[in-house]
């Protein structure tokens, strides 16, 4: 059974239909790459998968539960098992790196402060951020902010992770670091949806791709499938040809 099942998803902004009929699914442990031109609404789909945007039609089924019918309170259990990695980290700038990571643990676990501290230090060391514990987000580089954002999102060990352009604007070192972390999570069996324009990273981490265009999924499959079929849409997108 699919862990994420999107059926006939519709979304409009200011009376303009952005998504007419988006349908795709993600299997357990799979990483799905959601690709398409700028402004096609990839992030909107990603935000809808965790209830940050309300769907105007269709269904979004997460582990068998349709989340389009849920209110904010009812979405809380979904949000503890689905993590969202924001494009710019979205760290709380009034809190230190330590407190940013402690936030979800204090909210959703019964861990003692000592256990929380141990978990945070372990996580920060894994992300190569052991020295940044006491720093504020404003004192971190863009790459470090994204890595802390990823560390915060996965610290309560979610079963699904949604990545919104996690490598956008990063140098090769930080891109590689994020890529390694995504692959490590994948090895642990975490299901994920990866929105990006960074195709080398997408090819490295994604098992399958969904190509969005004109408000629908134009093509879906592995890189091999999409290169061979679907009018060569994926190669056209990757090579920056017209139409995207």
């Amino acid at each position, binding site marked *: 059974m699919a862990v994420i099942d999107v059926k006939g998803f519709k979304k409009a902004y200011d009376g303009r239909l952005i998504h007419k009929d988006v349908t795709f699914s993600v299997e357990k442990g799979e990483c799905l790459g959601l690709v398409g031109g700028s402004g096609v609404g990839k992030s909107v789909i990603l935000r809808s998968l965790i209830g940050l945007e309300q769907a105007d039609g269709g269904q979004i089924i997460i582990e068998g539960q349709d989340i389009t019918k849920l209110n904010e309170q009812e979405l809380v259990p979904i*949000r*503890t098992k689905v*993590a*969202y990695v*924001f494009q710019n980290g*979205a760290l*709380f*700038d009034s809190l230190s790196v330590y407190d940013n990571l402690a936030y*979800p643990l204090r*909210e959703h676990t019964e861990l003692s402060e000592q256990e929380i501290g141990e978990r945070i230090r372990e996580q920060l060391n894994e992300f190569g951020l052991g020295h940044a514990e006491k720093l504020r987000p404003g004192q971190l580089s863009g790459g470090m902010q994204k890595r802390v954002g990823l560390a915060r999102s996965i610290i309560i060990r979610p079963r699904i992770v949604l990545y919104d352009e996690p490598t956008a604007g990063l140098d090769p070192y930080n891109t590689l670091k994020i890529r390694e972390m995504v692959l490590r999570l994948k090895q642990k069996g975490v299901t994920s949806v990866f929105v990006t324009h960074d195709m080398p990273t997408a090819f490295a981490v994604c098992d399958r791709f969904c190509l969005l265009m004109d408000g629908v999924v134009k093509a879906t499959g592995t890189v091999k499938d999409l290169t061979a079929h679907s009018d060569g849409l994926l190669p056209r997108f990757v090579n920056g040809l017209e139409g995207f």
Partner: protein
Amino acid sequence: MKNSITNFIRLLGGLTILVRQIFRELFVPPYNFGLLMDQMYQIGIRSGPLVFVTSISTGMVMALQFGLGLEKFGGKLYVPKIVSLSIVRELGPAFTCLVLAARIGAGITSELGSMTVTQQIDAIRALGTSPIKKIVIPRVLAALIVIPILIAFANMIGIMGGLIVGVNDLRLDPLFYVQKVFATITLKDYFAGFCKTPVFAVLIALTGCYYGLNVKGGTQAVGNATTRSVVVSCIFVLIGDYFLTKLFWVFEQWL
């Protein structure tokens, strides 16, 4: 004109929804006393100097204006009465709340607006927590607790300002001044002014939160929302002041 009416209806609708969300989550544990204390410090202690300057200068200017005017008719002995009564019934609460609307309203809107455009509000939701509980409730409660306390101090300081001018410039006896103040102000007078402050406090904090959470766009939108929030808060205080004064006047007649 049509746009202004639409925006006003949208504002009222938004505030109503915000109030409903606050009541829905206010009594649901866990309670964030730490966040409340932090906001009480931000809103209360940090507004102290501004409230002090505003109220002392109001009292001093009032005493000076009335003193110089009434001296011509030999009426400067009425200065303690007029100054204390006008400060306690009207100028203390209304004028101080106008200044606080600018300081607190702008502070809340710009902070929440920045959090909105940098997706921190979305992050609070995505991490399975509520921005109403974490952000809005502590600010509204802190304003509700702290602003009346600030107004109580403002009333006292305003009357002290009048005393300073009365003694130094109008050559009034300090003991006479204090006796006149206590003889003039009744509890009814005090509460006619003071009871407006919780209403002003909630209006200021709610308006600030509403505009901050509804920022759409970038940093320019944060600036625009902040300006709008201050203007609307001030209008709410002024219009609210009229209706509350009228309401308390009816009560006073009835009592």
